[in-house]
């Protein structure tokens, strides 16, 4: 029985959006399987972080891009109900098309009038095949896109890190390079836990600790940051 008035501590929504490269090159060396596996494995960790966070209600969505782009998971799904549907590969790397869909989701009309900085995670192994520059310029006209924590994970050695860095912004976080499945799992876990936590309810900060990011202070990746149950694909991409 409720013995005191009121309700839960007031929260703000936090939008967490995956931008996943599903071009045909993601098929080689099991990259798409590794990405599916890594995101699926990150979900319980994300749910744990959200469970212990009284300040945010986390919603997850996902955009996929190859020849064109579309919502992979369009509904803003509360993290506690989120499940991952495997991505398939086909076609080329139309990053610009994905950024246009993202822009549509981050307009002032679409976003709540009060929220936490959105977290956008771009995962790609290649080189954009459409006019991403114009799409990125248009995206960055949206105030919520400017405020967002933008993280890019380059999968394998053929990913164009310069372009991914453009997405993160000059002052933003450096591109993370995942050259094998184990590293990819670690980075996906890092963005799903440490970055999510930093954007919603910053943890204790140490004097002189190194952090990155402008509008959200994100702890640098610790060398000891690890995944307990790493997946076993050892191929180097």
């Amino acid at each position, binding site marked *: 029985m409720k013995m005191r008035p009121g309700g839960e501590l007031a929260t*703000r929504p936090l939008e967490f959006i995956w931008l996943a490269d599903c071009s045909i090159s993601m098929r080689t060396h099991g990259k798409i399987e590794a990405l599916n596996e890594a995101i699926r494995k990150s979900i319980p960790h994300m749910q744990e972080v959200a469970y212990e966070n009284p300040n945010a209600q986390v919603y997850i969505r996902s955009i996929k891009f190859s020849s064109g782009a579309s919502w992979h998971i369009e509904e803003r799904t509360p993290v506690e109900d989120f499940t991952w549907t495997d991505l398939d590969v086909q076609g080329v790397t139309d990053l610009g098309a994905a950024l246009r869909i993202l822009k549509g989701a981050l307009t002032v009309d679409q976003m709540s009038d*009060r929220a936490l900085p959105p977290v956008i995670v771009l995962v790609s192994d290649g080189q954009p095949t459409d006019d991403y520059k114009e799409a990125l310029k248009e995206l960055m006209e949206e105030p919520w896109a400017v405020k967002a924590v933008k993280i890019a994970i380059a999968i394998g050695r053929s990913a164009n890190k310069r372009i991914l860095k453009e997405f993160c912004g000059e002052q933003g976080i450096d591109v993370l390079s995942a050259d094998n499945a184990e590293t990819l799992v670690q980075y996906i876990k890092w963005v799903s836990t440490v970055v999510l936590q930093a954007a919603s309810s910053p943890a204790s900060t140490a004097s002189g600790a190194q952090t990155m990011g402008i*509008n959200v202070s994100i702890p640098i990746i610790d060398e000891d940051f690890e995944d307990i149950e790493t997946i076993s694909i050892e191929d180097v991409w």
Partner: protein
Amino acid sequence: MHRSFKDNQRVLTESGKSLNIVKFLGAGGQGEVYEVLYEGRRLALKWYFVQTGTDKQKSMIDKLIKSGKPDERFLWPMAIVNVKGKKSFGYLMPLRPSQFSNIVDLMKRRVEPSFDAVITACVQLADSFYKLHKMDLCYRDVSFGNFFFHARTGDILICDNDNVTASEITTAGVLGTPRFMAPEVVLGKSKPNISSDLFSLSILIFYMLMMHHPLEGKMEKNIKCFDLPAMTKLYGERPTFIYDPMNSSNRPVAGYHDNAIAFWPIYTERIRQLFIQTFTKGARMPSHRVSEKVWRDVLIELKNSITVCECGMENFYDIQKLKMNVHNRCWHCNRVLYPASRLKINNEVVILNLNTKLYGHHLMKQEKYRFKKVLAEVVPHPKLANYSGLKNLSHVPWRVTTKTGMQYSIDFGKSFTIEDGTKIEFGEVKGMIRKG
């Protein structure tokens, strides 16, 4: 990359003793925590990552072990552990019993304690901070994650004590957790110290009593993107208390800050005044912050003032309002609340509701501020429906004198009828009952 230890692993400490790793409990920014079996006792082992397990950290832990724990509520470092073949180090501490909830559970209403239990937890927090500060130690890192409480009794446990340092240390350790840091620490003008601890303690007490942050009102509502610059402005540059009597610009907004609006009027004027002091003048001038001792005394007053309405819900008897002939209404059913029977004892007034308990704090001088031993309890009268009695649960016989001058002795297990004007000698202290 793997965990430092496996479940059920047996390791040898550098002193040659055997340590059984029972299971992994969790990992944080600084290291991992395991349940271990050591010399026949189940304990917790915090094991630092190589980067964080520095000599400086080791020396800090060593100092804490030497200084000893401020009281039993602190899960304090007990011994440093070095393991053969491992670069880093760890320390042993008591294991937290599983029946304790964390403050996040309270904020998310996953536990639903009574007002009495929440206030007891706040009293214990203030008391433990008083003892910590008396040793010239500073906690530095108040946050939801570092405190645990028992939802039925209000007993608390204080974890993550490895950031505790001497107050004057200005270089090492954590700065604190956003939302709990004092404005001068947010702005980088000061490192955590006892004064900033007092601000953080007040924030935590406000959160626990009001289920809301004291600086989040209209200004917070108007912030679209709640990022680091917004937090610095709200908690550092322009900290404005939501109920500042001289500045109404940051009042809570209905629909956004409903908990603050629901809880604030329920509490007594004395409690509200302490929050006003600490979050207005105290936000700008650390010397104006409410001390742990004052918090402890006024929170005990609040605990003593709990009045149970006919509907069964706890409310508070506000003597300040009563003096002005203003009667509170029940927050739940809106009935007017009339003063119940009350016991004036020492300098405190305890409202005697059915099941109200008197503790060592009330009846024994050496037990002041302790709420473990129940020495008396209000019980229903066996025959008269509208009457209740006070039952002696102590082994000290009480001497009771009624208004008409009749005297009798009340031994352990016996009760007397609660009536206006009755005087009681409880042994070490004397009390008198007022009714109506």
